[in-house]
C-alpha cells in the first residue's frame, strides 16, 4: 500500500520536472524507471524529450564554435606577440647600432685640436735604410721588419724590430717609434724618440735622426695633448741650424696651435 501511494506521487509529479532531472542528472532510481516507461508509452512526453535533447545538441554545437573561435584568438595572440617582440628587438638593436656609431663618430669629430693637427701632419717616415728587395732568400730579421713596416703591418714590424741584434740603435728605435705613432700609442713613441731627440752624438747622426725625432716627438706630444712640450719640439725644428726637415710645416703648426 505504501508503494502504491508513492507511485501515485510520482505520477502526479510534473513530467517537466522529470525531464529536467534527466538533464541535471538527478533522477533517482525510481524516477529513472518511470522516465523510461513514459518515454516508451507517452508520445507527447517522448516528443518533448527529443526536442530538448536536440536543443541541447544544438546549443553545444553553437557554443563549441564560439569557444573554438576564442581559442583560435588566443593562438593568434601568441603568434602576434612573437612577431611584435621580434620587431621591438630589431628596433632596439638598430638604436643600439646607431648609438654606437654615433659614439664613434662623436669621438672622431670631437678630437681635440692638437689631435687633429697630429692627424693632418703625421705620416710614418719612409724606409730609407732597408729598401725592400723582393724574392730575397735568407732575408734577415731586419729586412723582414722593414718589409712589414713598408706594408703597414706595424705590430709585426714592432715584434721583429724587438728581435734584431742591434735593437738599441737609433734608427731601429726611430722606426719602432714610427710604428707606435701609426698605432696611436703615443707614450711608447715618446719614450723611444726622447733619447734620440736629445742625443749628443752628432757625428754618427748621418741620417739626422735627431732632427727628425724632434719633429715626430712634437707630433707625438700633440697627439697626447701635451701642447707645451709639442711647441718646444717644433721650436727646435724651426731653429735647427743645419737641417731643413719639416721647417715650414713646423712653422705652420705653431701658428695653428691655439695657445691654452
Amino acid at each position: 500500500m505504501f508503494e502504491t501511494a508513492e507511485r501515485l506521487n510520482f505520477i502526479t509529479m510534473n513530467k517537466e520536472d522529470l525531464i529536467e532531472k534527466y538533464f541535471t542528472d538527478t533522477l533517482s532510481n525510481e524516477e529513472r524507471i518511470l522516465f523510461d516507461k513514459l518515454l516508451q508509452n507517452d508520445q507527447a512526453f517522448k516528443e518533448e524529450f527529443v526536442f530538448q535533447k536536440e536543443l541541447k545538441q544544438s546549443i553545444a554545437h553553437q557554443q563549441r564554435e564560439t569557444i573554438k573561435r576564442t581559442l583560435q584568438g588566443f593562438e593568434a595572440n601568441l603568434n602576434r606577440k612573437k612577431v611584435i617582440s621580434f620587431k621591438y628587438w630589431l628596433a632596439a638593436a638598430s638604436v643600439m647600432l646607431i648609438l654606437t656609431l654615433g659614439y664613434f663618430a662623436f669621438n672622431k669629430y670631437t678630437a681635440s685640436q692638437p689631435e687633429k693637427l697630429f692627424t693632418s701632419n703625421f705620416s710614418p717616415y719612409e724606409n730609407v735604410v732597408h729598401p725592400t728587395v723582393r724574392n730575397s732568400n735568407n732575408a734577415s730579421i731586419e729586412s723582414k721588419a722593414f718589409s712589414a713596416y713598408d706594408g703597414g703591418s706595424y705590430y709585426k714590424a714592432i715584434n721583429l724590430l724587438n728581435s734584431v741584434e742591434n735593437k738599441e740603435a737609433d734608427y731601429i728605435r726611430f722606426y719602432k717609434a714610427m710604428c707606435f705613432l701609426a698605432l696611436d700609442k703615443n707614450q711608447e713613441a715618446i719614450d723611444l724618440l726622447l733619447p734620440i731627440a736629445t742625443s749628443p752624438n752628432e757625428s754618427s747622426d748621418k741620417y739626422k735622426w735627431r732632427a727628425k725625432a724632434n719633429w715626430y716627438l712634437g707630433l707625438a706630444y700633440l697627439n697626447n695633448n701635451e701642447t707645451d712640450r709639442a711647441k718646444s719640439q717644433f721650436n727646435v725644428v724651426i731653429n735647427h741650424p743645419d737641417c731643413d726637415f719639416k721647417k715650414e710645416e713646423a712653422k705652420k703648426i705653431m701658428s695653428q696651435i691655439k695657445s691654452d
Partner: protein
Amino acid sequence: MAGVSQKIHLEAIRKGDSSVLETIYKSNRDSFLSFALGFGINRDDALDIYQDTIIAFRENVTSGKLTELKCAPSTYLCAIGKYKIFQLLRRQKPNALDGRVIVEETKEVLDVNLFEEEYTNRMELIGKQLKKLGNRCREILVLFYYEGYTLDEIAIKLDYSNKLVLKSQKSRCLKQLKDSIL
C-alpha cells in the same frame, strides 16, 4: 599550495572566466603540441585537436564529470588528446570508440562524447531559431543545457527571486522556441 590554486581554477572554468581559459590554453599548449606531434600528425591538425581537447576538458568540468583536479590539467589534456588523435588517425566513425577515456594515473573516467557528434538539419533549424530568441531566454538555456548549471544556480546568477519564477520562465522560453520551429 598547488592543490588550492587548482581548485580555484576549476571553479573559474565553471564560471566561464575567459582569462583563466587563456591561461590554461597558453600554459599547456607547448607540451601538448610536442606530445601530439609525436604521433606523426601535422601541426595544423595538432592545434585543432588541442583546441577540441580544451573544449572537451572544459565540458567535463561544467558537466560535473570532473569535480577536482587530482593531477595536473596536462594529464587530463593528454588523456583526452590521445583519444582524439587516435580518432583522427584511424578515421573511424566516432561511435566505434565508445568515448570513454581512462586517466591512467588516477583511474578517473572522462567522456569525450558528452555531446553526440551528429548535427542534423533539425538541430540546425533549432540553432537558427535559438539565436532569434531574446537574450534572457538564450542565457537561461545555454547555462542549463551546456554550462551544467542547476536551476538554483541559474536563479542566483541571473538574479531571479526564486527558483520557481525561473522555472516558469524557462518553460515559456522552451514553448516559444518549439512554436517557432513548427
